[in-house]
């Protein structure tokens, strides 16, 4: 039955996602535990996650996952109950278990059918547990004997209670009796369990007729906390008051991403239709202004306009997730790195709740990891160097995330030695990436960008962790693919900051429609600082580069039709005495593009074009405009990199 197997498929994929989320959530806790010591809440949290993963994996028949989760869970339980103490060794081996669970989940996700031998890990976990137990002197020998895994709480059954007045204690005694036949262990067989329930029920029925009476008997023999009972009405009242607003507790629904993307796609189409309707409605408004039907049309369309904007926002938010999803693995990463490099590093994270598009979540992890690795490996000095400079021995790396307008900004800063620009230049020449002539013309800002060039690594000997110069160029490529950009600011002996800016949403953007040589283009609005209308004689030429002075600042100017290779230049508007300039600002970089005409602002849906090299063609994608035409969306990021990346006049 395909319905059932579909359901099973869905359950499995949900399990993988949920289990991975659990691991993401608990992983930073390990590092925190090492720092703050034993925190019962955290230990319990980890215990519960392992327990839950084990439970669900058992249903799905994933024995390896069950084994690893079970062993880890047993350790966590003992940690939580204070029977053993948190130690680095212990954390190491549990982190290995977390890694193994990820690997196992990864195999499930990839359907690769690869089996992992988890028995060495399970043995390690057991050994760690035994060691931890023997480290505790106050542990009883019996507990030691049954130390690994199977060791649960020793028999602490309150059978001593007077059986005659208490039906439950009697039931407990019954269990003891039945259980005597069972192999010695904490678990009960199903039969024993049933019998116990039976006994409890029978006693209940015989001795008392109502639950009320039973409860009356209980406090005498067994501790069913009376305060809890006393509190019950209060709680009931409080929750009744809450009841009319069921929204008090957020309800979650897991939805397949494909479905959301479909809605997103359709919302995009609706936006396009809305744009066309707005155009038509404007036309009618001008032509048949006195017709009452026109007024109705205008009203209806403007209502559609508002609803569409709201819908777009709603769909966009559906795809947004807190960036913490990506960041949660970093404390562990920094911990491992600082250990292997023998550098003392503190990681500070701010703004982890900032929400970004799902695509960003999926693609920002690698670039961030690369930058973080770079900051720790290359940015931060060794402890001796830091002390020699009078800096605190412990280096700090900060990740700060915030929303700025319709962009998300991620800053990764270290308090290390800063980037040695002269050294960068020297290496660039030495590695044959640039000529000494080219290097001479570089501004400091432009020189830091050498880091992002393919095949560049500042350390002569690449360390195991930072790789061999692959990485930083990938950072730039990955971020560009998210329509974002990255820039560096650095100061000697103070530190460096990598700043990544990414638009909030990737699918629908606000764009400025421009015209050049009779053709329409869309320019994403977010990097546009301003638009200007200048007379041609304001444009100056310095060593072959057109520039314009805007409020005392020189800004390089490029003709859009030259950039796009549009040689057709006979348009009447380009012969006018005025030019329309669009000032683009990408971080610290600023430049102008000259166009013939500004058409207006429009919301456009980016449709990706396959097989186009965006860097050389400056085309990001295409969209359909309000008047039903296909228009290219320009990639100003690529322009900025190509035009200003390596030299500046």
């Amino acid at each position: 039955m395909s319905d059932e197997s579909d359901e099973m498929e869905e359950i499995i994929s949900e399990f993988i996602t949920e289990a991975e989320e659990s691991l993401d959530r608990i992983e930073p806790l390990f590092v925190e535990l090492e720092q703050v010591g034993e925190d019962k809440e955290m230990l319990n949290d980890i215990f519960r996650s392992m327990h839950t993963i084990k439970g669900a994996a058992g249903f799905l028949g994933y024995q390896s996952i069950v084994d690893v989760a079970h062993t880890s869970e047993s350790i966590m339980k003992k940690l939580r109950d204070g029977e053993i103490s948190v130690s680095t060794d212990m954390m190491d081996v549990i982190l290995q278990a977390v890694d193994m669970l990820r690997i196992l989940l990864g195999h499930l996700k990839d359907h690769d059918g690869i089996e992992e031998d988890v028995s060495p890990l399970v043995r390690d976990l057991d050994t760690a547990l035994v060691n931890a137990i023997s480290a505790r002197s106050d542990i009883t020998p019996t507990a030691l004997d049954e130390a690994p895994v199977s060791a649960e709480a020793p028999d602490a059954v309150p059978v001593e209670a007077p059986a005659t007045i208490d039906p439950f204690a009697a039931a407990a005694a019954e269990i003891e009796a039945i259980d005597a036949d069972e192999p010695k262990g904490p678990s009960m067989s199903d039969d024993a369990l049933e019998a116990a329930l039976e006994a409890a029920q029978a006693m209940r029925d015989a001795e008392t007729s109502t639950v009320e009476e039973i409860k009356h008997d209980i406090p005498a023999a067994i501790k069913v906390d009376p305060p809890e009972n006393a509190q019950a009405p209060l709680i009931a009242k409080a929750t009744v008051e809450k009841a009319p607003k069921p929204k008090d507790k957020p309800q979650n629904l897991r939805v397949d991403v494909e479905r959301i993307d479909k809605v997103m796609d359709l919302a995009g189409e609706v936006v396009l239709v809305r744009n066309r309707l707005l155009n038509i409605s404007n036309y009618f408004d001008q032509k048949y202004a006195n017709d009452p039907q026109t007024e109705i049309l205008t009203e209806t369309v403007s209502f559609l306009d508002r609803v569409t904007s709201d819908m777009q926002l709603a769909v966009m938010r559906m795809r947004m997730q807190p960036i913490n999803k990506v960041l949660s693995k970093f404390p562990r990463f920094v911990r491992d790195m600082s250990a292997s490099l023998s550098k003392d590093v503190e990681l500070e994270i701010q703004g982890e709740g900032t929400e970004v598009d799902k695509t960003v979540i999926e693609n920002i992890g690698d670039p961030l990891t690369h930058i973080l690795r770079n900051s720790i490996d290359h940015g931060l000095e060794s402890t001796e160097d830091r002390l020699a400079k009078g800096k605190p021995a412990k280096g700090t790396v900060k990740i700060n995330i915030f929303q700025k307008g319709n962009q998300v900004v991620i800053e990764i800063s270290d308090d290390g030695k800063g980037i040695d620009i002269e050294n960068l230049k020297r290496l660039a020449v030495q590695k044959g990436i640039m000529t000494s002539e080219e290097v001479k013309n570089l501004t400091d800002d432009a020189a830091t960008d050498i880091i992002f060039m393919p095949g560049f690594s500042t350390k002569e000997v690449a360390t195991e962790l930072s790789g061999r110069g692959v990485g930083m160029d990938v950072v730039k490529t990955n971020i560009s693919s998210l329509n974002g950009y990255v820039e560096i600011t650095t100061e000697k002996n103070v530190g460096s900051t990598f700043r990544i800016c990414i638009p909030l949403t990737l699918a629908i953007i606000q764009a400025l429609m421009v015209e050049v040589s009779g053709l329409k283009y869309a320019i994403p609005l977010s990097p546009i600082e301003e638009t200007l209308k200048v007379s041609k004689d304001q444009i100056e030429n310095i060593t072959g580069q057109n520039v314009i002075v805007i409020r005392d600042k020189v800004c390089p100017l490029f003709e859009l039709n030259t950039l796009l290779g549009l040689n057709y230049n006979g348009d009447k508007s380009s012969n006018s005495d005025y030019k329309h300039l669009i000032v683009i600002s990408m971080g610290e970089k600023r430049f102008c593009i000259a166009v013939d005409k500004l058409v207006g602002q429009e919301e456009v849906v980016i449709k990706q074009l396959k097989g186009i090299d965006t860097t050389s063609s400056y085309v990001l994608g295409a969209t359909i405009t309000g008047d039903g035409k296909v228009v290219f969306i320009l990639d100003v990021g690529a322009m900025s990199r190509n035009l200003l990346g390596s030299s500046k006049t």
Partner: protein
Amino acid sequence: MTDLKIKILVVDDFSTMRRIVKNLLKQLGYESIDEAEDGEQAYIKLQNGNYGFVISDWNMPNLDGLSLLKKIRSDPAMKDLPVLMVTAEAEKDKVITAIQAGVNNYVVKPFTGEVLKEKIDKIFDKIST
């Protein structure tokens, strides 16, 4: 035979588990199944809805299964509501604690649809006699 129309509340913090249990219940023919992600949410739902049966996990954040059970038993409006407790191990002291708190039955993960059916039938057999 248990009434297949009863409204069942499945309580578990792990949504995959809720789904697995729901799926098993559906296979057994139950039609009206609702979920809650912890004891707290479950208790609120139980106060407002007309539930005939609760299947609850033990380990949950906010309010665990045992505390939920105790709350149910001490609430006059729902003290007789049958509760089936789900856990990963049949630890003796846990079972005893659950019995003391008035659990109707107890099932150990992982379980099959048949086992679940057996447990539910037993619970309702006992209630009806």
